[in-house]
C-alpha cells in the first residue's frame, strides 16, 4: 500500500511541477492545488497506513497496538488542508484580481512592478 501511495505522490508532484513551469497564473494555481494534495498524501503515508485496527486503546492495555492506524498524521493533514484551502482561495482571488487589473494571466507580461528597460541610476553627480 505504501509503495502505491508513494508512486501516486510522485506522479502528483510531477504534474504539479509541470504546471508550475507554465507561464499562466491559472495553471500555476492548479499546480499549487495538486501539490497541496500530494503533500497531504505524503504525510499520510509517512504515518502508518492501515485500516484494520482503529487507533483506540483497549481497556486492558496502556498503549496502541503496533498494527493500529496512526491518528497523528490525520490531525496534521487536517491542519494542512485547512491552511492550504484558505491559501488556495486567496490565490484564486488574487489571480483573478490581477487578471482584471493587469489584463493578462501570463507571468511574463506582468511587468508593472518590475518594468522592462528601467532607467539606470545616474552615473554622476
Amino acid at each position: 500500500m505504501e509503495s502505491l501511495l508513494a508512486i501516486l505522490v510522485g506522479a502528483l508532484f510531477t504534474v504539479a511541477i509541470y504546471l508550475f513551469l507554465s507561464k499562466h497564473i491559472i495553471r500555476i494555481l492548479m499546480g499549487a492545488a495538486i501539490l497541496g494534495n500530494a503533500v497531504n498524501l505524503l504525510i499520510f503515508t509517512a504515518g502508518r497506513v492501515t485500516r484494520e485496527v482503529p487507533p483506540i486503546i483497549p481497556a486492558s492495555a496502556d498503549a496502541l497496538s503496533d498494527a493500529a492506524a496512526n491518528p497523528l498524521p490525520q490531525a496534521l493533514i487536517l491542519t494542512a488542508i485547512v491552511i492550504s484551502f484558505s491559501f488556495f482561495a486567496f490565490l484564486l482571488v488574487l489571480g483573478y484580481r490581477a487578471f482584471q487589473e493587469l489584463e493578462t494571466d501570463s507571468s511574463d507580461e506582468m511587468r508593472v512592478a518590475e518594468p522592462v528597460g528601467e532607467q539606470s541610476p545616474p552615473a554622476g553627480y
Partner: protein
Amino acid sequence: MAGTSKVLEDFSDVYAPGPLALADWLIVAPVVWCILVGSVLLMLRKRTDVQPLIAIPALGVLALMTLGLLAHVVEGGTVTMTMGRWLPPFGISFTVDLLGAFFAATSSLVALAAGIYGRSDVDESGRRYGFYPFLMLIMAGILGAFLTGDIFNLYVWFEVLLISSFGLLVLGSERKQLDGAVKYAFLNLIATTLFLVATGYLYGLFGTLNMADIAIKASELRGTAPLMTLVTLYLLAFAMKAAAFPVNFWLPASYHTPRLVVSGLFAGLLTKVGVYALLRILGMLFPFERQELSFLIAIVAALTMILGVLGALAQNDIRRALGFLVISGIGVMLSGLALGSPAGLSGAILYAAHSMVVMTALYFAAGLGARLGGGFELSSAGGVYAQNAAMAGLTLMLFFSVAGLPPFSGLWPKIMLVKASLDVGAWWLAGSILVTGFLTTITVGRIWVLAYWRPAPDTGTAAAVSPLPVGATAALFGLVVITTAFGVWPEPVMALAQEAARGLLDPSAYVLSVFPAEASQ
C-alpha cells in the same frame, strides 16, 4: 516507521508536574496577546480612527512582554510550556531559549516602531483594508515561529505570518501591488509547501515533531536514515523564505510595492524568520548534516551577499535598492551558518538582530526622505539635506550601520564573522563579506549623495514642503537610537548572542527543559 516513541507503563507520566509559575506564562503571552488584540481590531475595522489608539499601546505591551520574557530566559535559562497537559513528545510545546527570546524581543520593538510609523504612513483606505489587525496577526505568526518548540507548529506559524503578509502586501490593491503580490504569494507558497514536504519526511523518519526529541534522536538515526535529503529540503525551503541566492527573485519583485511601513516590516522581520528557522533546524537539530553542507551554504552565502549588493547598485529606485540590500544581508547571516562555529553562529545571530532594526529603519527613512526629496527615483530626487539636515543625518547613520562602518551596529557582527571565517581558513568567505561591505558603502553613499546631499533639481514647480509627521520621525529616531546604542556599547548584546549560539550548539539545556523527567533518571 512512525509510531509511539516509547510505551508508557505509568499514566501519571502523561501529566505535567504542576501548575506553571506565573512568569512562565510569558512564553505564550505574546502570541495570545497578538491574536486577542488582532481580533478586537478586526471587529473594530470600520472605526479606523480608534484602531491606532488601541494597536500602538498594545504593541507597547507586547514589547514589554517579550523584553520580560528575554529577561526571564536570561535569568532562568530555557523554559518550556506544554499545551493541554500532554507531555512531550506528544503534546505541542512552546520552548523558548535565548535565541528565540532575543529575536522575539527585537522583532516586537520593530513592530512597535512600525505601528507608530503606520499612523502617518497608512491612510484611511489602508486602515480600512485592515493594516492594524494584520500587523497584530503577522506579529502573532512571527513570535509564534520564534517561540515554538515543535516543527509542525513552526509550519503553522509560518502560514499565519504568510497569510497576514499577503493582506499587508495588497493593502489598497494598486496595480503594482497586485503584480508584486502574485510573485510573492506563489513563490512563498511553494516554499512553505516544501517545508511541509520536509516535515512529512521528518515525521516518517522520527515519528515525532518535537524539536528536543528530534535533537536526541538525530544522532541515533544517523547513518540509517536519509537525513541529508531531509536537511537539504529544509535548507531549500528556508533559503527560499530567507531570499538566499538563487531563490531570491520574489523579494525585489514585491518588496517595493506596498506601503513603506509594510516594506519596512517585511524587510526587517520576514526574511529573518527564515534565517531563524535555518539556525534552529540546521544549526541545532542537524549539526552534523550542516557540517556536510557547509561548503554549499558558504557558496550560497557568498553569492547571495555579492549578487545582492550588485543588484542594489543597479537600481534607480531607492526602495528597490533597499530590497537588494536585504538580500545581501541574508548572505552575511548565512555565512555564519556555514561556518557553524560558536563565533560564526553568534555573528549570524547578531547580524540578524542588527538587520531587523536597521532594514526596517532604512525603509522608514526612505519614506520620510521621499516626502522631502520628491520621490524614490535617484535620478530625480534631491535636496533632503537642505530641507531637513537632522533627518538626513539620521539616514546617514543608518547607511553607515548597514554598510558596517564604525561606530554603528553593523560593524560588530561583521568583525565576528570575518574573524570566524579567517579562523577556519575560509579567506574567500571573509573576502566576500569585506567586498560586500565596500560595495554597500558605495551603494548607500550614492543614495545619500544623490537623493540627500544634491540640491533639489529645479523643476520650476517648487514642491510644497510638508512638515514631517512627528510619530513617524519618532519611530525612526527610536530605531536609530537602538542601532547606535548597540554600535557603541555592544558588549551586553554580544554576550547574549554568544550565549544563544552556545545554546544552539549544545542543545542539552533545551532538551532538559522539555524533558525534565528524563534528566532525573
